[in-house]
């Protein structure tokens, strides 16, 4: 018995996949192709002419101290965002899973931040941590801590990580909670009878059974940290101070649209594309194998 549907002609199946292909073509293949093409040229500042330089843009980038620094910044930033957002989400999901009364309200409230756009979230956090009028800054001042993310690169990094991870916690929470609730109760009970206390159960039963969810979120969150955090960084630090928060995707924007170096910007997009592809392949190849059942 063939379970799959088989189409007789070619036109209907083509029509059915067309919307997806069109969207991918218009919003991915065309811009990606343009980026690759542009990365081979250096246009003049007015965009009237361009000069073919081959891989010159790439050569220049890879020997650029600031560009290499941006790689490290991106690695630190995306690791922190992923770890913070997934860690907090998992902790909240475990608590919500144990909750019996008021769990509906708790969940709804936890899901709200997901509806806040990254740029808006950035502004919210910026106000709270504003060096002159921010509430948190004021309280930190009372505690004797002089918060100034405009001057301090580490504080700036901390702030963009918090702002980026915050909205993401809701999303991760939803998936973790669904994952937790998919674990049969009797398996947990069997472990309890076998003598495993809460933390042992979590470490040896719950977390391994949650690993497909964790893996999925890992991929999604790293991609998020690489690309979608642009709005947060743009509103809070604009990549500063001294490029301390200039992640790769922000540098694409800063060099291209602010610095008007479109050739370099295009070359950076291509590199970013390759990096994310490699990361995803590595994750699927090596980590997914360790994911249980």
């Amino acid at each position, binding site marked *: 018995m063939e379970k799959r549907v088989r189409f007789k002609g070619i036109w209907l199946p083509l029509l059915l996949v067309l919307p997806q292909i069109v969207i991918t073509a218009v919003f991915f293949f065309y811009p990606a192709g343009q980026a690759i093409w542009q990365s081979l040229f250096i246009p003049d500042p007015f965009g009237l002419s361009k000069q073919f330089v081959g891989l010159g843009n790439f050569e220049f980038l890879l020997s650029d101290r600031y560009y290499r620094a941006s790689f490290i910044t991106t690695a630190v930033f995306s690791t922190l965002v992923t770890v913070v957002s997934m860690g907090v989400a998992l902790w909240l999901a475990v608590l919500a899973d144990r909750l019996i009364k008021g769990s509906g309200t708790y969940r709804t409230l936890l899901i709200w931040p997901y509806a806040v756009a990254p740029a808006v979230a950035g502004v919210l956090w910026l106000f709270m941590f504003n060096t002159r009028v921010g509430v948190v800054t004021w309280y930190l001042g009372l505690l004797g801590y002089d918060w100034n993310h405009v001057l301090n690169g580490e504080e700036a990094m901390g702030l963009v990580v918090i702002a980026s991870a915050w909205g993401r916690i809701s999303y991760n929470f939803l998936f973790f909670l669904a994952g937790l609730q998919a674990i*049969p109760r*009797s*398996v947990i*009970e*069997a*472990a*309890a*009878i*076998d*003598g*495993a*206390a809460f933390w*042992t159960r979590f470490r*040896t*039963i719950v977390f*391994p*059974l949650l*690993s497909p969810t964790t893996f999925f979120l890992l991929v999604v969150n790293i991609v998020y940290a690489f690309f979608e955090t642009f709005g947060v960084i743009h509103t809070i630090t604009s990549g500063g101070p001294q490029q301390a928060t200039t992640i790769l995707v922000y540098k694409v924007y800063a060099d291209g649209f602010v610095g008007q170096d479109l050739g370099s910007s295009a070359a950076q997009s291509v590199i970013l594309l390759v990096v994310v592809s490699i990361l995803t392949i590595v994750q699927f190849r090596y980590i997914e194998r360790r994911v*249980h*059942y």
Partner: protein
Amino acid sequence: MATVSLDGVRKSFGKTPVIHGVDIDIADGEFIVIVGPSGCGKSTLLRMVAGLETVTDGEVRIDGERVNDKEPMDRDIAMVFQNYALYPHMSVFDNMAYGLKIAKTPKPEIEERVRTAATMLQLDPYLARKPRELSGGQRQRVAMGRAIVRKPAVFLFDEPLSNLDAKLRVQMRLEIKQLQRQLGITALYVTHDQVEAMTLADRMVVMNAGRADQIGAPLQVYADPRTEFVAGFIGSPPTNFIDPAALGGQGARMGIRPEHLALCPLPEARVAARVLDAEPLGAETLIHTRLPSGCLVTVRQDGAAPIPDAGAEVGLSWRAGDEMRFDAGGRRL
């Protein structure tokens, strides 16, 4: 090795009472089966002994010690679940060794105990497999193995055979019984299947709507049911219930088992009935009849006996004393 006793145990979920005071005393090494229809509270009772549900009122004692407030892990019990509840990401070996590893048992001893249990359950070839690579019967054995290796004081079984097919169920039933005898561990077994209850139990507890209607040896419960519910629940095909007004005598209801009824010529009959249908099963034949009062009565007769035609008028007879009479509250008179 331990005794278990339940003393006036009650359970309410919120304001809804589900168990209304149950007293059971289980001797060391005894096999007790709790049987009843779904929703009678039998699983809840077992889960209270396991420590997976809190006890609303009354006392649960294992080996004389009150365990109401003890965690499941401190009660020295092992439980086999209906869906087996194996750890899907662990091999059969690790599933069985899990409890021992947590108890920090030395490695060679874990190895030895798991191997012994695996041999006992014919699981040796499967120790490296994951649960999903096993058949239902094999998974059931792993669940048993996990319970055995820990050498608990009490085994708890929560409908362990109801996910197996009929043939396997009979086989596993025998194995569970033999294993329990061999190990001499006190067992508390919950089922809705009266055949399992009859065959496994040293004593059975028939539960009805949160109460233990009767506790006793299977044959004694069969022969002498204390309530109308027990008479109807234990025995297959089920006891016929007749409104005794037509027959005279005391009681609000009268029960008579199909195997105690016989067809006879009309003049010798205690009551006349019309044959509706007959079900020949080979060794026996079930004859469904209707009394003039409208009650449906099933007669079980030997497979070799002649089968009356549908619509025929027949007489029913039974030996004096085989009928069971109950009062309006369902209690045996």
